[in-house]
């Protein structure tokens, strides 16, 4: 039996290849997901333990809670402790931005662009001078080599550098350095270095440091030293051991990596799921074709179990071979994945891509299991073939009866819809169980679709086949009847495309709805003409110069800090109560933007939650531990642009650590032409290339394009499912052409030209894929609508159906159909008539 199975595979290499591709793709994706995330994890882990290798202790002044920095005095005291061999005070000031000769700046919305102090302490700080001189005078600065290479810089020239605290200042570029002793360890971070005192003043560290790194003599008792260091400091400051430092450093990374891996594996799962249908369909067709052969086997004494095992063995071999290929390709796929994500703006460190044993085990499990499960039903059918089939003239597998199909499909659909609805509307403890219920619901719903869709073949194909039969001549007519010949096969072939397009459509609809909601909300709430953003704080003086412009009318600035209200950590925002109502329409329905300080305006929902009304008093605890009271002066209903808690700018310094503004909104002065106002604004902001100035339309565009970018990535991955669908169609058509050899030969004998033959196969392919697309898009519309409805209204208000895009999906299906038919059509046209018609 095994020999026969092997021979069967060798004799049907194309069939084997086409079946394998689906599994290979799925496994490739699984392996890529693991390899990429493992690679990032280990590179990052190595990097951080490397970076902190010389550090025995780290002092983290609790700058988080009130802008406290470690003073020079601490440094000296620590250095004096017995056993301490090296101390370095380090400054790390985000948003310190160099401007190159072309006026360009590094991307401020990506990895940090940080100002540092040049300590020259390579043991603890790992900054290595590559070229030129270290910054030594107050007018010197040095750049890391990546920033230097990417911008237009020349050693010895003078450039502007902008810092949050110091505004714009001119410095002379004296040197180029690298972060990392042997290799570049910056992972995308950019550094601008200054001489120590200059850094302290220009970066606003007030003679202090953000962090103190300490090396301890190996002979000394480190715990004792740690205790002594801790004794010197304020109680809120942390003294971390080397290990804790590495942990702190990688923790943030892991919290990003986990969801990233989950997302990748989700896509991998979608691909495998779709592949399962392809494999199932292929095996079913092949067993249908081998029915006489299998019947003969039964007739000469093979047991049902033996037949079943032979099908399973074939599936096992397909699964194993494709999984092994998939693992190999997965290593390549990992590189492709990194390239893809980097093309979308992500930045990954270079490093090895490890293939962990766990990855191999998982891939084997998934690849082989999916293949075997897919072959389960076909194997059962094969085992139930009666020996009588060998003797019949025209034997074919019976299609499952409609009644039974409706019953099973209906039950599955109920379970699927039920679970999906529960996932959408039920209450859960956390997101993970909700997503699992949703996922199971979706999987069951899709299986129900696969079971029920043969019932839709006849009516739907009649509809989409009508124009083809009318326009396509006899080839079109025959294609249409070929497509309805075996509804189960047509539906089985189309189901991969159905699932792929259902997902793409769902994502598209949610995305479109999200865009509409956001842009509706923004255009109704933002009445200001211009919005100015900084990656961090607006540079000093910017607000004043904008306010001074005669072309600009009202200006409002936004700032804020973390505070504690009613025991919860909240964000307290400041804005100009005097002008805000002219610039942002937050739908203030009660009270007023009462100026003069001490007043708070709240988002109504939040106020209701806390049981607050106009006139009540709100207690706010600042990060410095101070208690402040505000009186509620107004409530608003639209929180698109504003946060929940807002106080007037005059109160800013009472609670914030650093009174910096991050955003500015402005309107043009009355009677000023918009282009004049814009020109004036641009000219004032010109020295600060890191600022983004947008008018209302640009702001909306930007927001929409961010959503689009996200959708694009998701759709690239889901596109792989569509690719598998294409392979599935190729597979079925190839098998059908083989199966209909005699029929095609007869057609050629009675005068069908090769061109008509190709056309017939092509039209059949188009009908099958459009069938899949119509079903998929319809399902996607329903899912998209249901999910949009389930998402809270302040994120997605109403489902939007982008009809053009949905039409494009259907057209894309036509293209998929045409592509899939290329090879099978060629095979059909090339058939030797004599071979086809001569009786066997």
């Amino acid at each position, binding site marked *: 039996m095994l020999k026969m199975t092997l021979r069967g595979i060798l004799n049907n290499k194309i069939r084997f290849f086409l079946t394998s591709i689906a599994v290979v793709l799925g496994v490739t994706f699984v392996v890529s997901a693991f390899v990429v995330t493992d690679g990032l994890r280990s590179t990052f882990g190595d990097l951080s333990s490397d970076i902190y290798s010389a550090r025995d202790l780290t002092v983290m002044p609790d700058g988080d809670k009130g802008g406290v920095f470690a003073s020079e005095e601490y440094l000296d005291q620590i250095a004096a402790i017995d056993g301490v061999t090296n101390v370095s005070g380090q400054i790390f000031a985000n948003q310190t931005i160099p401007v190159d000769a072309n006026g360009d700046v590094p991307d401020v919305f990506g990895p940090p662009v940080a100002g540092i102090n040049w300590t020259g302490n390579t043991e603890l700080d790992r900054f290595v001078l590559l070229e030129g001189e270290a910054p030594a005078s107050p007018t010197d600065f040095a750049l890391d080599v990546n920033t230097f290479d990417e911008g237009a810089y020349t050693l010895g020239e003078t450039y502007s550098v902008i810092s949050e605290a110091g505004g714009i200042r001119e410095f002379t570029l004296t040197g180029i350095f690298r972060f990392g002793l042997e290799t570049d360890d910056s992972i995308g971070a950019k550094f601008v270095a200054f001489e120590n005192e200059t850094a302290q003043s220009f970066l606003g560290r007030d003679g202090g440091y953000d962090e103190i790194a300490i090396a301890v003599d190996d002979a000394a008792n480190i715990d004792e030293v740690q205790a002594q260091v801790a004794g010197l400091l304020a109680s809120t400051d942390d003294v971390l051991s080397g290990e804790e430092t590495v942990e702190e450093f990688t923790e943030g990374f892991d919290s990003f990596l986990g969801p990233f891996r989950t997302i990748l594996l989700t896509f991998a799962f979608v691909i495998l799921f779709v592949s399962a249908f392809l494999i199932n369909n292929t095996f079913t067709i092949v067993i249908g074709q081998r029915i006489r052969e299998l019947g003969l086997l039964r007739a000469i004494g093979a047991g049902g179990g033996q037949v079943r095992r032979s099908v399973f063995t074939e599936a096992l071999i397909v699964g194993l071979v494709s999984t092994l290929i998939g693992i190999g390709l997965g290593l390549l796929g990992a590189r492709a994945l990194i390239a893809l994500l980097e093309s979308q703006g992500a930045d990954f460190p270079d490093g090895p891509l490890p293939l962990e044993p766990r990855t191999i085990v998982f891939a084997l499990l998934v690849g082989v299991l999916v293949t075997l499960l897919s072959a389960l039903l076909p194997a059962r059918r094969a085992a139930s073939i009666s020996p009588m089939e060998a003797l019949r003239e025209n034997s074919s597998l019976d299609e499952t009866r409609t009644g039974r199909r409706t019953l099973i499909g209906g039950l599955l659909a109920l379970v699927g819809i039920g679970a999906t609805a529960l996932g959408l509307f039920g209450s859960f403890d956390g997101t993970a169980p909700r997503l699992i219920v949703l996922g199971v619901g979706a999987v069951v719903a899709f299986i129900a679709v696969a079971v029920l869709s043969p019932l839709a073949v006849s009516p739907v194909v009649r509809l989409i086949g009508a124009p083809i039969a009318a326009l396509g001549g006899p080839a079109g007519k*025959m294609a249409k009847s070929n497509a309805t010949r075996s509804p189960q096969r047509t539906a089985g072939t189309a189901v991969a495309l159905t699932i792929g397009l259902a997902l793409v459509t769902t994502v598209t609809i949610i995305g479109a709805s999200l865009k509409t909601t956001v842009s509706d909300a923004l255009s109704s709430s933002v009445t200001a003409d211009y919005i100015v953003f900084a990656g961090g704080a607006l540079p000093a003086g910017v607000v004043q110069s904008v306010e001074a412009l005669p072309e600009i009318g009202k200006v409002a600035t936004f700032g804020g800090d973390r505070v504690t209200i009613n025991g919860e950590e909240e964000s307290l925002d400041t804005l100009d109560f005097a002008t805000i109502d002219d610039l942002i329409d937050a739908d203030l329905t009660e009270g007023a933007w009462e100026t003069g300080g001490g007043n708070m305006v709240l988002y109504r929902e939040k106020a209701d939650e806390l049981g607050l009304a106009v006139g009540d008093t709100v207690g706010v605890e600042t990060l410095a531990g101070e208690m402040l009271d505000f009186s509620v002066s107004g409530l608003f209903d639209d929180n698109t642009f504003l946060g929940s808690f807002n106080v007037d700018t005059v109160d800013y310094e009472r609670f914030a650590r650093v009174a910096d503004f991050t955003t500015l909104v402005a309107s043009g002065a009355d009677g000023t032409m918009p282009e004049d106002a814009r020109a004036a604004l641009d000219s004032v902001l010109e020295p600060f290339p890191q600022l983004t100035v947008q008018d209302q339309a640009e702001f909306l565009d930007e927001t929409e394009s961010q959503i689009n970018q996200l959708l694009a990535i998701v759709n690239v991955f889901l596109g792989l499912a569509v690719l598998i669908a294409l392979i599935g169609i190729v597979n079925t058509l190839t098998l059908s052409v083989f199966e209909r050899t005699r*029929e095609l030969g007869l057609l050629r004998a009675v005068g069908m030209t090769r061109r008509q033959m190709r056309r017939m196969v092509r039209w059949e392919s188009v009908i099958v894929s459009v069938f899949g697309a119509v079903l998929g898009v319809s399902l996607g519309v329903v899912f998209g609508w249901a999910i949009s409805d389930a998402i809270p209204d302040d994120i997605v208000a109403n489902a939007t159906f982008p009809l053009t895009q949905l039409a494009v999906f259907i057209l894309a299906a036509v293209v998929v159909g045409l592509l899939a038919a290329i090879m099978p059509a060629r095979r059909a046209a090339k058939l030797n008539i004599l071979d086809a018609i001569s009786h066997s």
Partner: protein
Amino acid sequence: MSDTMTALAARTEGASKIYGTGDTEVRALDDVTVGFNQGAFTAIMGPSGSGKSTLMHTMAGLDPLTKGNTFIGDVELSSLSEKELTLLRREKVGFIFQAFNLIPTLSALENITLPMDLAKGQADDAWVENVIQTVGLGDRKSHRPDELSGGQQQRVAVARALASKPQIIFADEPTGNLDSRTGGEILDFMRSAVRELGQTIVMVTHDAVAASYSDRVVFLADGKIVDEMLDPTADAVFDHIKSLGD
């Protein structure tokens, strides 16, 4: 070969067909020159491997000759391209095979008009209707092949061959799959198509009874024409085969 006054619907000149080379060389046809009269019913007989099917396939343009020429009417086939051959088959040649004559997805009527549909030509409706009535399929027109009996299916095949009024019809063991009564009906019908409608039919068979329906039997052995018989009877044909075997 006896000279005939009537025109030839199809003929071969020194037709040879060799499969394989060297030791495995098989001469399926060996310098065959034969003609088939218009409006005649000719049977080609011979034992298995005598080349009768090869002769039919090469004459119908399904298989090229190694040497020599074949003609449908005045058209020499080896000069035609693949596409021209297809069009010639569609317009000038009809086929009836032993089995699997019909496209399972098409109704009886659609099967009959298939060659005309493929040519996007207009079927001669009156003629088609006439053919259908003659073969007795009037009430079966919209049935699918799997709803027809073997005899009915074969009658549809005959009707298809006749419907486009081809210059010549090639039939390959048309009754091989039928019981003798049904087979007799089909052969009767083929003969009347020749007598009454002036159709030309060339039939390959190994059945002496089937051959007896024809006007002339051509005997093939080892790729050569060894004999022929005019106005055959089943017994005469049977005896002749036996004598060939001796």
